[in-house]
């Protein structure tokens, strides 16, 4: 069997290349914008996602960290640690403010944790954990604000000495800074209270979460995935909707461009296709021919576009570390399925003319 569709497609390489390039450019745009949106959304729950805690306990009715005020008795950590299935329990304090230096400011989570405990920064790229009067700052915010180790910064109306830098804790919404639990309690005027209690479990986190809610009145207990999903949901509604609209608009326009490119490609091959019909190829054969050509074009373009998107992601990571480009499987499926669909529509519409054409006309000179 002769692969007529593929041979016809690649006989005129320039024309085939133009079709592939058009589809690939549209796909790169759609995939990259979706990747920026996905990366941004993931960043906002990074404190939760990178925490060693399996369960987070908050004040009843409080299901997020962002824009929330949660107060639970710090002593509840001791009570929780005695429950079956609980490996460890540590309180943290939380507040929102801005990280200020003379050169600028950045909205920030302020997290107070027990020295040596699990609520602090998971990695230190430079320096050491905070002691009294000291603070750990994210390296991305530090770079943006020109902060280096040993600098003084202002948070919550007092001055702190930067003792260390962590990484990956600056998102589209804000950055995060870490101080000791006692320092933050003093700055907030809080006594005997915590904002959240982090729990490490030995068994099923869901069971432990239920057990905590049953044993301790007035608290909300959520597993890490659930707490993370709630956090992303509230931030998405408040902040990242803008990016989701941009990403969706890019997908729609990208698909429209793909459809137009494929339409134009078939339009320029109508004469060749007419010849095939005159040689005896039926309506279904002609349709199959252009569909296969469209599929070839989209497949090659898709592979190139995915590779280019990963390349753009790597370049962005190198020059703007606070922006993540995350290519998710769902995004690939969406763009792939969408492009195949619009490509099919794009190649079939011009065929209507071919279906009706008298085969003999193709042997006359072009007008």
């Amino acid at each position, binding site marked *: 069997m002769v692969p007529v569709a593929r041979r016809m497609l690649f006989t005129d390489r320039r024309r085939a290349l133009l079709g592939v390039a058009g589809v690939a450019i549209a796909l790169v*745009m759609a995939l990259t914008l979706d990747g920026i949106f996905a990366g941004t959304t993931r960043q906002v729950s990074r404190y939760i996602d990178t925490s060693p805690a399996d369960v987070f306990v908050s004040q009843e009715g409080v299901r997020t960290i962002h824009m929330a005020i949660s107060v639970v008795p710090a002593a509840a950590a001791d009570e929780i640690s005695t429950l079956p299935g609980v490996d460890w329990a540590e309180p943290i304090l939380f507040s929102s403010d*801005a990280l200020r230096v003379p050169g600028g400011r950045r*909205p920030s989570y302020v997290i107070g944790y027990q020295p040596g405990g699990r609520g602090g920064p998971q990695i230190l790229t430079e320096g050491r954990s905070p002691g009294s009067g000291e603070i750990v700052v994210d390296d991305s915010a530090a770079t943006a604000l020109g902060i280096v180790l040993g600098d003084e910064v202002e948070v919550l109306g007092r001055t702190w000495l930067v003792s260390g830098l962590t990484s990956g804790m600056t998102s589209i919404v804000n950055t995060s800074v870490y101080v000791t639990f006692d320092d933050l309690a003093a700055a907030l005027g809080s006594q005997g209270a915590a904002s959240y209690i982090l729990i490490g479990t030995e068994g099923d986190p869901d069971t432990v979460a239920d057990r905590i809610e049953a044993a301790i009145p007035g608290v909300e207990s959520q597993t890490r995935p659930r707490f993370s999903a709630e956090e992303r949901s509230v931030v998405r509604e*408040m902040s990242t*909707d803008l990016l989701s609209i*941009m*990403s969706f608009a890019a997908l729609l*326009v990208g698909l429209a*461009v793909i459809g137009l490119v494929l339409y134009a490609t078939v*339009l320029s091959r109508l004469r060749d296709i007419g010849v095939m019909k005159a040689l005896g190829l039926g309506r279904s054969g002609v349709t199959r021919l252009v569909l296969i050509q469209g599929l070839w074009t989209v497949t090659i373009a898709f592979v190139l576009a995915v590779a280019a998107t990963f390349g753009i992601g790597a370049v962005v990571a190198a020059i703007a570390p606070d922006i993540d480009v995350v290519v998710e499987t769902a995004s690939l499926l969406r763009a792939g399925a969408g492009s195949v669909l619009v490509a099919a529509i794009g190649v079939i519409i011009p065929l209507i003319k071919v279906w009706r054409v008298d085969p003999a006309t193709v042997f006359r000179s072009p007008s």
Partner: protein
Amino acid sequence: MFGRVPAARRMTTADPKRLAVSLLGVGAAIGLVLLLQGLWNGQLVQITAYEDHVGADLFVAQPDTESLLGDTSRVPLSALEPIRALPMVRAADPAHLHATITELHGGKEFVFIAGYAPTGLGGPWELRDGRTARAGGEAVVDSILAEEHGLTIGDSFDIKGREFEVVGLSENSRSWMAAFIFVTDDSARLLTGSGETASFILVQTDQPAEAAAAIEEITGLSAVDPAFLAENDRQVLAGIMENPVLLMIGIAFAAATLVVALTVYSGVVERLREYGIVKAMGAGRLRILRLILGQTVLLAVVGSGIGYLMYLGGVWLVGRLRPQFWFSLEWRHLLVITAASAVMALVAAVMPVRRLGRLDPASVYRGW
């Protein structure tokens, strides 16, 4: 002979289907960039809704307050009377601003509570329906927020365990990620537990500079120009979201110019045979170049027009589906995008001309 014939236009319009596809491709690419740029500009305009519309000439704030979004300001209500007593001050009223998450119909909603003196400054600047809040427990709700949650005048809802009745619906009262709910200053103080303080004292005066100096001298507080606060709020928003948004716009812009270039290049390559005929009829290289550039400019200009129409369509669609997002497009953005597309189109159009220059005119009468 060619000078009297509008060859560029005729050749361009000879194949209406191909022309339509090219124009739609160019238009869609340009329309997307305009839509993204307009959406981002809209957020920068929207974020300063309070400062822009509340009607104050000065915001009296806690010292070192530079923005509404990035700073927390508390001023004592005791400063109100000395400020009102200043001869250049026409009006001075307390304003309470508090961002909070409230539950409406089981869903979380981030809102700005704006407390104001019922007969003073700080209330809703544009009422669509109903009246302003005059007593505790009454609220004017942003009309889009109200629509999203099915709230109408006379309905009740809950903020932090306190019940409020909707007495009015306000227009243009969203600021980026949150809608305003206007309540009386007494209600706001109960909600925020702010005691004998307010977030700001809003001042109306015909002599802002003199009034600011006098207020700072007698109260020790900062008297800030609303334009200064607005500019800093824009910077706070830009600091948070600018990088990913501008990266998105940049990538869309790059893709759009490539699509334009590809469309023009394809069009010229597809017509090489026609240009060959024109060459065989005696047209020089310059004449053919002018022909191609004429077609390209036509495509770029009409395509940009279609892109602008697509932008307007996108604005209308987003306005119907997500009315909380505003758009604002400056002419310079349209000009920059059109100019960049035109340059890319011209570059793409000129590339195949070299091939045409090598073409033997006689070959066009043979098959290619």
